[in-house]
């Protein structure tokens, strides 16, 4: 192999690695790095997307604890496929942010289509080790005001998502002034039954003072 051929091969490998880093290793969605690339376009007002959806799996910790982390990985994989299906006709883009958190970018004209298609994310069923398992996703979204950065929009969509979580499985809520006036507060507690340390962000006005149920062992208090 001469030097030119070696450089050519090296460039191809670097290109492959760069491409791989933009795709998440579990669902076939964009990675957090790919989202950061889109962020630059959004912040510069050059992106075609002006609607940000934040999605978070319900009871993911319970699924992991009950059926193992491999089952959790499969759940993420299946949700990724479901997201891809939801957005394929809406010309949106899906990303896995980290853990069980997902971001979807859309044009606001497609919000109606998204809301009707997103009901499929409320009930993602799969078989794992010959057992039928189910996972669901709560969603919050925000329409860009044309001034806010992606980080700010993402934060609002996440707050809306946390409100959606309180309303039940698979709910999708738009961020609004009412949500803004009910910010998330951090609550931490320890389950008396299984000893698990529970920590979560919940809307201030509806936040209970004490733990009411344990997402780890399922105990009610």
């Amino acid at each position, binding site marked *: 192999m001469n030097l030119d051929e070696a450089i050519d*091969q090296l460039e191809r490998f670097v290109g492959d690695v760069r491409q*791989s880093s933009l795709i998440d290793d579990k669902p076939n969605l964009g990675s957090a790095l790919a989202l950061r690339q889109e962020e630059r376009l959004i912040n510069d007002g050059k992106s075609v997307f002006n609607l940000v959806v934040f999605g978070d799996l319900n009871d993911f910790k319970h699924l992991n604890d009950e059926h193992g982390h491999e089952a959790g*990985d*499969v759940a993420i994989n*299946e949700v990724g496929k479901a997201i891809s299906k939801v957005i394929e006709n809406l010309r949106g883009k899906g990303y896995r942010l980290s853990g069980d958190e997902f971001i979807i970018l859309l044009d606001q004209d497609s919000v109606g289509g998204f809301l009707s298609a997103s009901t499929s994310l409320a009930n993602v069923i799969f*078989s794992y*080790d010959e057992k039928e398992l189910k996972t669901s996703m709560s969603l919050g979204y925000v329409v860009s005001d044309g001034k806010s950065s992606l980080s700010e929009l993402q934060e609002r969509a996440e707050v809306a998502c946390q409100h959606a979580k309180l309303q039940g499985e698979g709910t999708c809520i738009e961020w609004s002034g009412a949500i803004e006036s009910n910010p998330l507060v951090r609550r931490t507690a320890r389950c008396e039954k299984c000893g698990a340390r529970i920590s979560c962000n919940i809307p201030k006005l509806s936040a209970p003072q004490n733990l009411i149920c344990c997402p780890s062992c399922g105990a009610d208090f």
Partner: protein
Amino acid sequence: MSSNQDDFILGLPRRPRLADASAGAILGAIALGILTGGVGGAIIGGVAGGALANQRQPLEMAIREYFKNQILDVTFYYPAPRAVKVTFQYGANAYYTVESILPDDLQLTPEDAADWLYGNLIQQELPRILPRLRRAS
């Protein structure tokens, strides 16, 4: 390549050699970072020396290739020093995790351990559940 006693460890098949891998398997292994491009390119190009071509395939590459030949899709691969777990898809939304664990009393070199984990996975663990999964799907 012919099979002989060297291709078995404690009655289980060892990992195939690099020279026995298809070009597709080598390219797949390069894409997943299992093989370096130089080694893979040398094997595909047929310029690898005997020592290199005679090396056993990396465990992940050997397992992925075996599952591929069984028309099963490896979804996740979880390596550990004395075990390997593979989550594979056998139906539209159906997955199973199969595991190969080296017994505590079995002390082997890393290469022999990888061979044993491979052989145990494909000859003991997978055949134990695959017929049932195939009937169900």
